């Protein structure tokens, strides 16, 4: 946990016949980051061939992606099965898989076509509707339709016993059928005479060829449009709306059908995906093997603690017919290879690894900064966002996000960090006695709101200056920790020169510590008195003078080795280098330290904003309990502060870690460890 994981380099040779079993076992173990065997020193590499994959890898990938496309098309998406390589099924037949996927595509196309047919009917009904609306009444529409409209509006008589069947007979043809009997005396008497009912029919002229035979079959007899046909317009529009709603419901049913279809093929898709992905991974691993006539060779980095398990796995998969050799990083044949970096932290700290990686991967063998970043980040966030109520909201947002990420199978580390931030804010809120900007319980440490608002306070923190001083001390602790980590890293690397004379080395730490002491001495003496000159000369002057020897010493130790010759002009270079470095140390460390005042700044802003919203609420309700508008202001104010300040505090905490803390020790030149695994993302 303290340092990045120690690694070992594996070099192994197995029989070609066992190569697939070995690849599968390596994927199952998920511990090997492959290295091309040809990268190892020696002139034998040119005599090795490449282990060709036994399947068409590009086709496998294409098919796997197609399957994923179908799995994601389902609602909810079909979950990808977890792979462990335990299934001993037949290798996937790519032709069969391709045909099966084509069949699925055709089925889905069929469903979409059904939806589109319904959509076409909706569009046509919509057109009928627009025309009817434009006509104002059916009778005007009938007159107009005869001349130029797309509509055919007609009235007719039908035998009473078949009239009801007209709706079904016109199924699939955009139409409106309205009963017209009883609306017009003449039509009614005519209807009684023939024992028929009056019907008004609106269709599109283009459908005449389909409509006419139906009407003929049902005994339609054209009649004069009733005088009251205009009243039927609203009814016609209602009928159209009803029909459109029905068609939309049928479209929605198609979506349900599609989901049912995916439910029925979901497990098959999952199995196909698992088979294709397994084979793809095996082929990918195998393509990294080198081969002779009858053997394959492979190499890769493995965390030292997993080396024994990996060796056992290889021996088992190869039935003992293998040769395994282990190399140490930086030594022998592994000397020229860069070992990858695995950060190994307890599960609760894992989300903060992402914050570190987001900046860079630490150097192999150095201190893993994750635990320090976690503590520093949460302290900073808590100090800037110290309100238990707001923290509770942030915690809930984090937990909800985490639940949502779990459901969708996405990484949830960001939400975990948000939840931790919520927790830190709750702790800080309890310490400051702040609950949604109110003091429901007395503060356990100091009354942040009271101090910012100028109230009398007791205890060690009483004024805004005390808060600023607190955050500066906090910054000094963080920077001091940065120095300490840097010294440990340099000690482990045996880099004595940098450890002693670098600006973040012992000399830099000395100047920083002495400067901090001198500054506090000055403050303690009411900004009137500096420490005695003798002590200042010893504490600050001496290390500053020692720094003057850094550049010449570096020239003597490293410059000569690289063939540089001393010239008198170099003295000017040495002096300039010294001046620049001294300036960098004094001004840089002062800026680094004062930068932590932003922690107090953000915290004060948080309190001030809440105070402002309470004042606005009080202006709305000057006395007594808050009115509803005032409560609304408070709720919106709290929401705004949570969103705005939460984001600011999160970003500023990250900035302080990256630019003030990391700049003291972090060497982000590492290469992340990426083992091959059945569980690895693409």
């Amino acid at each position, binding site marked *: 946990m303290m340092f990045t994981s120690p690694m070992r380099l594996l070099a192994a040779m197995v029989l070609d016949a066992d190569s697939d079993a070995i690849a599968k076992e390596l994927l199952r173990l998920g511990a090997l980051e492959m290295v091309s065997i040809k990268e190892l020193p020696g002139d034998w590499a040119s005599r090795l061939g490449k282990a060709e994959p036994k399947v068409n890898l590009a086709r496998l990938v294409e098919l796997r992606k197609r399957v994923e496309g179908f799995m994601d098309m389902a609602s909810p998406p079909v979950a990808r099965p977890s792979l462990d390589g335990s299934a001993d099924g037949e290798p996937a037949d790519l032709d069969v898989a391709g045909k099966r996927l084509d069949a699925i595509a055709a089925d889905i196309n069929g469903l979409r076509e059904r939806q589109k047919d319904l959509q076409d009917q909706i569009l*046509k009904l919509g*057109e009928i509707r627009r025309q009817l609306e434009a006509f104002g009444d059916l009778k005007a529409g009938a007159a107009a339709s005869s001349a130029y409209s797309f509509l055919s509006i007609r009235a007719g008589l039908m035998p009473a016993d078949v009239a009801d069947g007209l709706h079904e007979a016109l199924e699939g043809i955009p139409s409106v059928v309205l009963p017209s009997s009883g609306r017009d005396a003449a039509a009614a008497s005519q209807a009684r005479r023939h024992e028929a009912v009056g019907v008004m029919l609106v269709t599109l002229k283009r459908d005449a060829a389909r409509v006419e035979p139906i009407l003929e079959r049902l005994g339609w007899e054209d009649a004069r449009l009733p005088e009251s046909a205009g009243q039927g317009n609203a009814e016609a529009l209602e009928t159209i709306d009803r029909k459109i709603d029905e068609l939309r419901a049928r479209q929605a049913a198609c979506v349900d059908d599609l989901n049912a279809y995916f439910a029925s093929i979901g497990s098959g898709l999952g199995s196909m995906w698992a088979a294709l992905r397994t084979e793809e991974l095996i082929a990918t691993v195998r393509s990294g093997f080198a081969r002779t006539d009858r053997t394959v060779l492979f190499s890769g980095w493995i965390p030292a603690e997993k080396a024994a398990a990996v060796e056992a796995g290889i021996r088992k998969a190869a039935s003992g017919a293998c040769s395994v050799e282990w190399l140490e990083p930086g030594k022998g044949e592994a000397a020229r290879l860069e070992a990858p970096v695995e950060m190994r932290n307890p599960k609760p700290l894992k989300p903060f690894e992402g914050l570190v990686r987001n900046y860079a991967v630490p150097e192999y063998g150095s201190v893993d900064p994750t635990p320090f970043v976690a503590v520093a980040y949460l302290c900073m966030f808590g100090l800037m966002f110290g309100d238990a109520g707001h923290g509770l909201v942030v915690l809930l947002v984090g937990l909800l996000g985490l639940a949502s990420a779990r459901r969708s199978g996405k990484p949830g580390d960001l939400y975990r960090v948000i939840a931790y931030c919520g927790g830190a804010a709750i702790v800080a809120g309890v310490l400051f006695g702040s609950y949604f900007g109110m003091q429901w319980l007395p503060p356990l440490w100091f009354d942040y709101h009271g101090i910012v608002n100028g109230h009398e306070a007791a205890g060690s923190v009483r004024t805004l200056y005390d808060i600023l001083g607190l955050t500066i001390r906090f910054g000094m602790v963080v920077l001091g920790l940065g120095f300490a980590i840097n010294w440990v890293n340099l000690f482990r690397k045996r880099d004595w020169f940098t450890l002693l004379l670098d600006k973040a080395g012992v000399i830099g730490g000395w100047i920083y510590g002495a400067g901090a002491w001198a500054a506090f001495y000055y403050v303690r003496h009411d900004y009137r008195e500096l420490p005695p000159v003798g002590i200042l000369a010893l504490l600050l002057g001496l290390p500053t003078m020692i720094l003057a020897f850094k550049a010449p010493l570096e020239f003597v130790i490293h410059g000569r080795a690289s063939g540089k010759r001393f010239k008198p002009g170099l003295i000017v270079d040495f002096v300039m280098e010294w001046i620049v470095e001294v300036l960098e140390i004094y001004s840089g460390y002062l800026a680094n330290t004062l930068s932590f005042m932003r922690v107090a700044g953000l915290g004060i802003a948080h309190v001030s904003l809440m105070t402002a919203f309470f004042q606005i609420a009080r202006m709305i309700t000057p006395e007594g309990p808050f009115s509803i508008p005032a409560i609304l202001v408070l709720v919106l104010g709290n929401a705004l502060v949570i969103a705005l300040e939460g984001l600011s505090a999160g970003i500023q905490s990250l900035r302080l870690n990256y630019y003030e803390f990391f700049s003291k020790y972090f060497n982000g030149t590492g290469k992340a460890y990426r083992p091959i695994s059945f569980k690895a993302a693409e």
Partner: protein
Amino acid sequence: MPSAIRTYGFLSAKLKARISKTMPPETMDRLIKARSLPEAVQFLRGTAYQAIEEAYTATGDLRAGEALLHERELRLYTGLFRYLDEPVLSFVRALAARYEIDQVKNAVRLWFDAHVRGRDVAGKSGYLFRGTIVNRMDVDAIVRAADIEGVAAALSGTPYAAIARAELPAAQASRSVFSFELALDRRYYDEAFAAAASLGGRDREAAERALGVDVDLQNVSWLIRFKDFYGMGAEDAMSRLIPRGRAIKPAAVAAVWDSERGSRGAGGIGLDLLGRSYPGVGAMMGGGGSAAKLAVLEAATRRVADDEAGKSLCGYPFSIGVVLAYFTKKRAEMRAVMTVLNAKYYALAEERIRSSL
């Protein structure tokens, strides 16, 4: 006059942020390689074209998504009006007329198909844009108009009514709306150039440059139609071209019209003109027949427009060039996406799709 930074600071940031959402080439490649339409549409999830995926999932109809997307883009465009002051506002409004002219063309085409050509257009007006872009008009009234006067009446209050009265009788006689559409386009460019003339120095230069390229491309595409479909002579063709093209001049048209390349078809003329007028297009010219040349010509014209838009985006950010470039690029991208999806609907081969992009 407000400073360029004040006028374009927000607009430039907004449009450049939207340009950053441009579909990456690998997504377009996956779209082209998709084995079926549902699979292709699936790739649009999470992109700026998600509306197409959502509408297709709900209706099975690609046109529904296209209409939705078109409407959103129009809303964005007309929404820019409130951030602008004169004279930039007038210029952007003049450019918006392009969308409105498309709206008029679509409605009149439906009317023309139904009433002059006697074709069935039932259900085809469903996706016409019915909102107001610059002038208020009722597109349904155009579609269901009884005659030319009805179309003109439906367009009353807009500058297009007079054009309809003047051009549609001839269009009806020739059974082609080409002359009507030509008149609409000419009007659009006349208005756009007039509005550009009132802009400040840098803006005027950028606007006239962009419009000039647009005119060139439009002229080239018309020349093809003049030569191949109407068999016009050089003089007749030139009289119909829009003036103020940036690089293609009447003399250049005359030079290639009856030349050897010209005799090989309109595609040859277009390519020759583009090759002479825009460096870089010449490299795209190869052998092949008339159809292949037309495809290359289309690709070349799009490349020219895209290059010009790219230059504007890389140049000074506080000018009208960014606005012009955004809409040029967006239109091109939307067209490419819809071309691929429609090609998937008709199960066209990958090579054919690529050749049409």
